């Protein structure tokens, strides 16, 4: 097959520090996002290990309740705001312009600004640990009155500022993605020829654009309550603590779709390549994604069923409804695999892990959508199980699949398959060992966010299993880190298209030149590179 590059492959990134710090190239910014997010993943993971080591045995005095509260608060805040959302934004940043045949994002300098706000925000958030009162400790959900001045110190103010900064970074990024996707597609790439990953980033960007500012408004209100004598959330003076919950969840429910949709997009790219079949039901995927995004705005109070201040039937009904488009996607992914010629490389293994684990997490959610069930399970470990099955089993496995899949494109070298499989097995086993018992713990009544439980509660064994599982998850990071290290140092060169992919990023060198493409193949379907490879479109050596 003729090479699509007119010039030799771009050299691997050996540019200096100054270049990386001042870059506006979406590929470098994407890599910065990924590296920064991964570092926060490790930090958030350390906090999780802290939580698990406190809960490993009953009546444990290892970690004080005050510190424990900070650990679970910061674990969640870091994982949500500094790991998963930016990680997916980073992959989007790298991949979306390539997939649509564009030379960069619409606003490269704003792109750089969006990135650099993140390490700053992370430092601000973590600096709470250095304050006398410690870091924010009232849960990532920051409910009043616990989040008010009377019960929390400067760590909470730092948390508020950090989250507001991250929100601004996200909003700017979403404007960038939307303008890029709508305005900068290569000729021939109509909306319905865009890869599903681009569609998921599109819908995610709409969610970010519309939902995040509501969180910002709530954060400002909380800041005013805490620092300027405000009364938004103070019932004693006419305010309303439930108001915070409503505003918070109006953002944070769409946020969970922000955290999963791009990962679903990645899976939708990987499954067709590794089953050598087209994605089943492309248009259904588009409409299902849009439907999930839209419905996601009308379910927020299902996090508040037990407050007594919620119109239950509306939210329960809407929550059940969201299962429909999600189910459509699940069936379509399975139909893509069915009768395919499967190659069980690491990206596919993680994708299969995604499908099975996200399915469990989703079914957990369907249970909770039933109000009476939720009344029993709210604020128990059932919810912790559910959220980790969708966010870890879903998003993290998706991110790992995307990492192994696109690492060759980003670095020019393929990650080692054996180490990848070892990581997958360890991570899969460790993950299920940690979080499956939590279903049972929740059903047995173990509440969330407690630092200590009694030996008579009957929860000891399962907690021990969960903690062992968490250590296995941590261990699974070692083959991954080793893999990245040796591959970058001396891995096998990948070439333009190591996986025989379908989409445009495989039509240029690995890594791509700064301007992305010397030459674009004709775009006649959602699989332009596949089309060229199989001679379905005559490649006349010029653009369409």
């Amino acid at each position, binding site marked *: 097959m003729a090479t699509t590059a007119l010039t030799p492959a771009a050299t691997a990134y050996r540019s200096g520090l100054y270049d990386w710090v001042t870059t506006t190239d979406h590929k470098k910014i994407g890599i910065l996002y990924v590296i920064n997010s991964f570092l926060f993943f490790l930090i958030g993971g350390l906090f999780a290990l802290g939580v698990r080591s406190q809960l490993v045995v009953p009546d444990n005095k290892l970690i004080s309740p005050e510190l424990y509260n900070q650990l679970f608060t910061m674990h969640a805040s870091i994982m949500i705001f500094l790991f998963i959302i930016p990680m997916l934004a980073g992959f989007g940043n790298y991949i979306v312009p390539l997939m649509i045949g564009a030379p960069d994002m619409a606003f490269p300098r704003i792109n750089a600004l969006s990135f650099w706000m993140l390490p700053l925000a992370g430092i601000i958030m973590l600096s709470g640990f250095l304050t006398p009162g410690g870091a924010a400790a009232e849960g990532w959900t920051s409910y009043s009155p616990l989040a008010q001045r009377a019960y929390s110190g400067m760590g909470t103010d730092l948390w508020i500022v950090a989250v507001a900064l991250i929100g601004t970074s996200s909003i700017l990024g979403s404007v960038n993605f939307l303008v890029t996707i709508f305005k900068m597609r290569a000729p021939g790439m109509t909306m319905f020829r865009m890869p599903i990953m681009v569609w998921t980033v599109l819908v995610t960007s709409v969610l970010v654009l519309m939902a995040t500012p509501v969180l910002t408004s709530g954060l400002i209100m909380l800041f005013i309550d805490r620092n300027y004598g405000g*009364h938004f959330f103070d019932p004693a003076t006419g305010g*309303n603590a439930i108001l915070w919950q409503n505003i918070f969840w*109006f953002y944070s429910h769409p946020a969970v779709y922000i955290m999963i949709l791009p990962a679903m997009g990645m899976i939708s790219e990987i499954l067709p390549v590794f089953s050598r079949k087209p994605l089943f039901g492309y248009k259904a995927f588009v409409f299902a994604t849009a439907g999930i995004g839209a419905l996601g705005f009308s379910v927020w109070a299902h996090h508040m069923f037990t407050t007594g201040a919620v119109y239950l039937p509306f939210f329960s009904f809407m929550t059940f409804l969201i299962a429909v488009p999600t189910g459509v996607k699940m069936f379509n992914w399975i139909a893509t695999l069915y009768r395919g010629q499967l190659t069980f490389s690491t990206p596919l293994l993680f994708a299969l892990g995604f499908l099975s684990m996200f399915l469990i997490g989703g079914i957990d959610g369907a249970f909770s959508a039933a109000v009476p069930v939720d009344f029993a399970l709210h604020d128990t470990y059932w919810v912790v199980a559910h959220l980790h099955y969708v966010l870890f089993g879903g998003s993290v496995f998706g991110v790992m699949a995307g990492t192994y899949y696109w690492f060759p494109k980003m670095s020019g070298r393929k990650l080692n398959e054996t180490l990848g499989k070892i990581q997958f097995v360890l991570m899969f086993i460790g993950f299920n060992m940690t979080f499956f018992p939590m279903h049972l713990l929740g059903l047995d009544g173990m509440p969330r966010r407690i630092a200590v439980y009694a030996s008579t509660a009957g929860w000891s064994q399962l907690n021990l299993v969960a903690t062992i599982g968490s250590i296995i998850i941590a261990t699974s990071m070692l083959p991954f880190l080793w893999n990245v290290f040796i591959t970058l140092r001396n891995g096998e060169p990948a070439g333009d298209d190591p996986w025989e992919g379908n989409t445009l990023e495989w039509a240029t060198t690995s890594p791509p030149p700064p301007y992305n493409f010397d030459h674009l193949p004709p775009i006649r379907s959602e699989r332009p590179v596949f089309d060229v490879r199989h001679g379905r479109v005559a490649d006349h050596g010029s653009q369409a």
Partner: protein
Amino acid sequence: MTSGTAIVVSHDDPHALEHGNRGISNPILGMILFICSEVMFFAGLFAAYFNVRANAPVWPPSVAEVGPIAEKFNLHAEPWFAATLTVVLVISSFTCQFGVWAIRRDDRKGLVRAIGVTLVLGIAFLIGQAYDYSQLGFGLGDGTFGTTFYTLTGFHGAHVLAGTIMLSVVLYRAMSGQFSARHHDAVEATSIYWHFVDVVWVALFSLLYVLPTH
């Protein structure tokens, strides 16, 4: 004769939008989307206001509930100053649009004049708002009424301030001759932002000074 760059560029053909649409430029499209996010920011603030208001037995809170300061809460008794501010801002939206129309016809002097007037009116609004704050007699900490009032109008004022900074930059660039009929994205984007700020104020004014109390 077709004038220069409008927000949406189309061919002269009357059926242009159906097959000859050249689209909105990237920076202007970006500003419109950013404004959508700002709509949602104010949505959160307005939602809080409506919620707090609906939960109060009486709104504004009565003297019996919060003490003598409640007498200051009766904004409806004297809406005239705020109404003047409203008129100022609405006029400034018109003058801003005159500026946009001017540069679309390549009338650079007209642009400078119009943006200059807009900027003056914007600053007048801010000074007026500050003066109004000093005369109100209640503060941010005075119950939910004070908190919501100052948060809503304060963040609107912050947006006006940002708008006046944008107008200043546009004015400077206009005076340096940097805009033409073909290239004046910053003028279009700033004017869209300024109209948005105006619309939010009209909504705020109606809500805080005009809407019947309960």
